[in-house]
């Protein structure tokens, strides 16, 4: 049963923080031509936790995810993913590491010449040693998780924006990755569809306890994630009772002009005196 709320009586025991982080950015900087996008960024994501990254457009949020996946190389600094420094790895080594990580892209990035079934099955088919029956079973499972089983034979162009995001989530999660990276999963969607997507992310977080980084410019999405848990009985996202928090801790990281200006919990975020952040969250 996912996410039975736990009472916050004292800060989390230090042992929970002592485990090696699954993601660790240390002093990372990156510039495109003369424009500095990230400036000495450092943060960690402990195992089993979620972190939401905010910032206005162009603040370098999506770049952080691409750096974490090794799709871009930083100008300086180190990036550890699951204990491996991606800045020192060859492309061939990175392919192996990426198979342990799931990523949902900003505009879904589904392969438009493949059906939904082929898109979701892509990773399994690339394993080359999984039977057709097993692939079919797992694709159905992944699509039923996002409630899109009926779209298996459709092409991405035949789906709505929200459905495409859900298929992208199914594709990223089919192999049960150790880390999930979400790049603005609700960007460009209406509020109702956005809530559906956030509900799915909360469901993924609470059912599988996957560590995740979520990039968004919508603060309400991250607040919803921090203040809700997924109830398997009702099959819906429920509000956490006052003074309780979900099993999977949720933290926040705010970027401004390529620098980290906040890294902490929701309580710390609400209590901050920083004028820029107060204006941002109001």
């Amino acid at each position, binding site marked *: 049963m996912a996410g039975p709320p736990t009472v916050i009586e004292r800060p989390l025991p230090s042992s929970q923080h002592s485990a090696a982080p699954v993601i660790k950015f240390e002093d990372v900087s990156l510039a495109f031509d003369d424009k500095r996008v990230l400036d000495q960024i450092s943060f960690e994501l402990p195992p089993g936790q979620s972190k939401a990254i905010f910032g206005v457009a162009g603040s370098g949020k999506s770049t952080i995810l691409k750096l974490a*996946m090794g*799709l871009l190389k930083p100008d300086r600094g180190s990036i550890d993913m699951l204990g491996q420094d991606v800045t020192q790895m060859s492309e061939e080594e990175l392919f*192996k590491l*990426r198979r342990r990580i799931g*990523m949902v*892209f900003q505009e879904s*990035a589904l392969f438009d010449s493949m059906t939904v079934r082929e898109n979701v099955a892509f*990773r399994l088919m690339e394993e*080359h040693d999984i039977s057709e029956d097993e692939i079919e079973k797992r694709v159905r499972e992944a699509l039923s998780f996002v409630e899109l089983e009926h779209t298996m034979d459709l092409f991405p162009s035949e789906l709505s924006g929200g459905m495409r995001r859900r298929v992208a989530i199914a594709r990223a999660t089919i192999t049960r990755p150790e880390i999930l990276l979400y790049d603005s999963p609700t960007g460009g969607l209406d509020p109702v569809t956005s809530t559906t997507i956030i509900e799915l992310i909360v469901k993924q977080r609470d059912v599988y306890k996957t560590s995740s980084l979520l990039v968004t410019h919508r603060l309400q999405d991250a607040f919803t994630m921090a203040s809700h848990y997924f109830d398997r009985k009702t099959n819906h996202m429920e509000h956490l009772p006052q003074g309780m928090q979900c099993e999977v801790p949720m933290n926040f990281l705010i970027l401004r002009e390529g620098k980290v200006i906040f890294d902490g919990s929701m309580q710390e975020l609400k209590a901050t005196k920083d004028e820029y952040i107060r204006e941002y969250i109001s």
Partner: protein
Amino acid sequence: MELISPTELAKEKVEAVQDYAVLAGRSVANLFRHPRYFGDIVQQADLIGVGSLPIIILAGLSIGAELALNSANTLEQFGSLSLIGKLVSVGMVTELGPIITGLMVAGRNASGMASELGSMVVTEQIDAMRALGTDPLKKLVAPRVVSTVFMLFFLTIIADLLGLIGGGIIARLIFGIDSRQYWNSAWQALAFRDVFTGLMKPLFFGFIIATVGCYYGMSTRGGTQGVGKATTQAMVASSVLILVVNFFITKFMMAVLGPH
């Protein structure tokens, strides 16, 4: 329009050549690495080979016919009309067959590859593929290179044959040359070096078409406008390279195997 300094421009060009060399080199190296995408190779072979068949048939027939038509007038002045088969067969097999097939497939497929891969780049599908742990150079580029080289070889043979048929039709219908005489002359004119030269060329041209098309596709920047630009550049660059490389292969073969 922003002006670029000559140094920057030179740097850009050198980098582009370097990137192309890396892509071309890796596409060859990937042939010997797992996984191998046989399904994708067959699919591309169908798209490139079978898809190009109608245009190659048409081009082969008409080029052969025109070659016969044009050369017949000159040959007639010297009373050597019977040599028309020889002229068409050597011309088609060593030069026109490979060149026409290469240029036709470049126009159709180098641009097609650039636009397809370019669209995948701008919609982040290439990044998604890398993020899913699959090397796009193995999954997308290598099958296109293998299929193009393989299919261009056979398309060239078809174009050569149809060129000869086209020439034969004109020789028979317009100049009244006996078909047996035409085919005898055509067959006897062909030496090993002609056939070897003619069949070596499509291997190089196929490699050029696929690697140039894929290179421009994979290096697309700037949205849909960038895709359009990549498509045009791929077609122009591959056609020019085919013409240049054709000259050097002919020259090299003449030096190695002796002139005709």
